[in-house]
């Protein structure tokens, strides 16, 4: 398995030290515009090669945690770090650069429906600056790794829910990120499909990828080394 690329530092300076966590929340507070406190001093770290499961009921703030890590929203207070860099006050112009370093899998994956599954996956590779030839190769390998080889020519909506999750995972890994942020990937899957998907994710951990997976229920197939965080009343335990 090819070594996964560490995220490029946003300022193109020295990469984070091996012992430094790839993801870090330090006393993060997040309040919505109407004053509702979603996170109230949440702190955690995720090291490289770690599989961390973020549990919580619906509305607990799991997706908010992932959105903060993807710089989709900014924390009200506290510090959010990705790849050793503080992104709490990241300039909007640098957000695309950050996201190209991450692998993001949404609960309900979005697609460019005019493109095939293969082209959707390839787009992610092209946006990272890869040339057409390499992007095509990587897309094919990514789809193969998630068990969707031969389905690249289909449109995303022609796939089942589980297959779409796998395709979204292929799109996330095609750039070989060091960090995968996965939001409720098993929410609409049956137990068998869910276990299969989790098992697939586990394989990436073995390659050194840090995975933060949000879920509201029990998930079968988690590796023994997976660490679980519970989000309750805005805090993590």
């Amino acid at each position, binding site marked *: 398995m090819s070594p996964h690329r560490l995220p490029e530092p946003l300022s193109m300076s020295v990469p984070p030290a091996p012992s430094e966590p790839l993801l870090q929340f330090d006393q993060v507070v997040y309040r919505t515009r109407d004053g509702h406190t979603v996170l109230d001093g949440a702190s955690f770290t995720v090291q490289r090669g770690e599989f961390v499961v973020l549990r919580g009921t619906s509305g607990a703030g799991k997706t908010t945690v992932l959105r903060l890590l*993807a710089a989709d929203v900014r924390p009200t207070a506290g510090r959010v770090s990705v790849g050793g860099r503080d992104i709490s006050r990241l300039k909007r112009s640098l*957000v*695309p*650069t*950050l*996201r*190209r*370093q*991450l692998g*993001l899998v*949404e609960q309900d994956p*979005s*697609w*460019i*429906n*005019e493109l095939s599954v293969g082209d*959707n996956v390839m*787009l*992610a590779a092209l*946006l*990272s600056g890869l040339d057409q030839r390499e992007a095509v190769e990587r897309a094919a390998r990514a789809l193969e790794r998630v068990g969707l080889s031969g389905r690249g020519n289909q449109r995303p909506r022609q796939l089942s829910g589980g297959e779409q999750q796998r395709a979204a995972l292929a*799109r996330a890994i095609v750039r070989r990120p060091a960090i995968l942020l996965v939001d409720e990937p098993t929410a609409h899957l049956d137990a068998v499909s869910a276990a299969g998907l989790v098992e697939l994710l586990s394989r990436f951990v073995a390659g050194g990828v840090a995975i933060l997976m949000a879920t509201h229920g029990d998930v079968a197939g988690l590796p023994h080394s997976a660490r679980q965080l519970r989000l309750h009343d805005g805090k993590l335990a």
Partner: protein
Amino acid sequence: MAARRPGTLLLAVLMVTLVLAPAFLVGLVALGARQNLPIERLAPEAVVFVARGTPGAEVAVLRDRIKALPGVAEVTWIARDAAWSQLGKRAAVPPAELKTNPLPDVLVVRLGMGASVGELQQASAAIGKLDKVDGVQTDWGWYQRMERGLGVMKELALVGVILAAAMALLILIAAARLLSHAVPEDLRVLALLGAEPAFVRRPFALIGGLVTGLGAAMAASAAFAGLRLLDPIVQSAVQGYGLDWQPAWPEPWWLAAGWLVAVLIGAGSGSIALADHRS
């Protein structure tokens, strides 16, 4: 984007063509009028009656002196014999029956356009003081009325041009935005994957520029074709006033610059339209 909605593309291009073609045609006609119609014919004039018995050589000297005066654009000498002959033709009286020519030599003095009535009066007073000048006949009233009329027309034309330009701009922007339809999900995907804003904006800018660029080119073609059709009509109309008409064409670089402005307006509008669709 355009391939998915060819009908909308055609509509957008037609919108641009329909708004620009008449404006362009009016501009071509105005350009032709400026180049062909002798505006100096509207200049104020004074008729100078030369004293009877003044020899031709002295009339010529007087003409040159008047021409040298400030504010005088041109002096035309109508010799008494030529005038008498013309009069005879118009009166249908045989010249042989007219024993003596009562007409004097006349100098028609054309003054400069835009001169005030005060300046015109000063000029005619100066002419009147010259030797061999019997009298100076003027009628500044019509000139004042014409100047006022022209002034009002210019102001109305300016307002009209500004309003028409503003309308044209709004329609160009609307046409460019017609095709700037973005599926929010597509934008969400591109944001998720870390696409730079320029990458996302580019197709919208391109389609906007395409719409206005195509429309402007078609409008120019339609205007030129329209001018060709109008040419004989305008020709016959101006010939009744003893004038000639040749269609005027703008310099190629003007056309290129105008087309480029249209493309830029379209590209900018399409790019800005993206903001409406951002989730």
